[in-house]
């Protein structure tokens, strides 16, 4: 086997030319899916974490159950339950006017991913919120700061520094896990690769997909590293 044939086994230019535009579309779908679900998941996760730390027993129990369920079952099962499971009650959803949502694979996937990552992020944030020294809250209380101002100005910026590493990790896991979107008819990066493979039967398609995932993960990793550095600039 010479260099040329090895190269064409890894990057067949003709094949590449044919599928590159689709891969770019797939990349965008993946990026959009992860970016939206991760951001919404962060908001929901923060609320869950606050609920988990609340003094109200019912709120603690409810959020705890939520996190237990979504962290304890596979994302794939959650996605199927949402899309195929809930989607099978067509007439009910039509009656309540939500059929447009549950028949749409994109929206169902977005919802499943958001609910799932929210549970993980909540656990990260709960840990980070409790990591802030109790004296910080006391100082804020003695200065007369409201609960919201205390959270926003004193607690959150400090817990973000604790949370940023694990959050970056969660985002990376999400990016890779998002490939299961291809199982509910979405043409994300993995979906596109599957399609291209089924037409060409050339394994190098999957290699490209893997390299592209690696590239996204690398960008995310570097971004979070930089973020972490700028958040910890006060530590002398």
């Amino acid at each position, binding site marked *: 086997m010479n260099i040329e044939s090895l190269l064409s086994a890894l990057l067949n230019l003709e094949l590449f030319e044919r599928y590159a535009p689709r891969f770019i579309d797939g990349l965008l779908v993946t990026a959009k899916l992860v970016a939206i679900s991760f951001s919404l998941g962060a908001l929901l996760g923060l609320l869950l974490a606050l609920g988990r730390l609340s003094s109200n027993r019912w709120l603690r129990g409810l959020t705890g159950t939520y996190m237990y369920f979504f962290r304890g079952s596979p994302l794939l099962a959650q996605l199927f339950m949402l899309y195929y499971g809930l989607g099978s009650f067509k007439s009910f959803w039509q009656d309540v006017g939500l059929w447009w949502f549950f028949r749409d694979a994109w929206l169902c996937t977005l919802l499943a991913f958001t609910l799932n990552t929210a549970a993980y992020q909540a656990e990260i944030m709960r840990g980070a919120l409790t990591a802030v*020294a109790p*004296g*910080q809250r*006391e*100082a804020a*209380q*003695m*200065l*007369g*700061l*409201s609960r919201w*101002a205390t959270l926003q*100005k*004193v607690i959150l*910026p*400090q817990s973000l*520094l604790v949370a940023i590493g694990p959050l970056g990790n969660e985002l990376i896991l999400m990016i890779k896990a998002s490939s299961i979107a291809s199982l509910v008819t979405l043409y994300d990066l993995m979906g596109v690769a599957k399609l291209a493979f089924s037409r060409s039967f050339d394994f190098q398609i999957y290699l490209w997909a893997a390299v592209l995932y690696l590239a996204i993960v690398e960008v995310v990793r570097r971004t979070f590293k930089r973020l972490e550095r700028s958040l910890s600039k*006060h*530590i*002398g």
Partner: protein
Amino acid sequence: MNSSITAPDSLCVPALPKRESVVQISGLNKWYGNFQVLHAIDLTVSQGERIVLCGPSGSGKSTLIRCISRLEVADSGVIRALDADLGKPSPARHKALREIGMVFQNFNLFPHMTVLQNCTLAPMSVRGFSRKRAEAHARHFLDKVGIENQANKYPSQLSGGQQQRVAIARALCMEPKIMLFDEPTSALDPEMVKEVLDVIVTLADTGMTMLCVTHEMGFARQVAERVLFLDAGRIVEDLPPEQFFTAPKSDRAQAFLAQIHH
């Protein structure tokens, strides 16, 4: 910095004649689980009074001032401060608590903010000051504690003594009527104790009501008008310093002083 912009008055007004009482505590009990930390405490503090609380560790002195600041909630008894019952939520209590400042043993500065931001946060967020006004205000007090030139540093870049002086300036920016000090020098290296005590002494000269938990007996002698000695959750002695140090009534206080003076 032009201090005439803000002219905070708490440091300029001469001491008022001491009449009005600003804190009244009666029958205060406090439990931690099965352990009773405070037993039926009665205490009245007059306007402008400077009180030092001392006693062995675990005697309840910190808990007492934490009850006045409402960082701890009393299990029974009445605490009134600045004309408000601290046991009942009310606008009067809200206002009163805003006028009680506290300095902690471990400073509790906000580590992610500069010295200046530490001092401007509450005036901007609670009192609605503009940034410009809050900064001028903060610089005035940072100047009072001798640390104005460090305004843009982060707490981690300062020594312990400097950090505690920032914490004092931060509390002063809210212009409190009552200042509580919870062992303000206990976490400091010996050579930094003086710079912090000097600042508190200057404050004492302004006529601010102060309650200070401390083991610095020289400071107590110099500044206090009353020394409260607590033991096992009770106020055992309540005397002017000259009497407390020379002729304490209780055996417990005599033993305590013997330990310190040895």
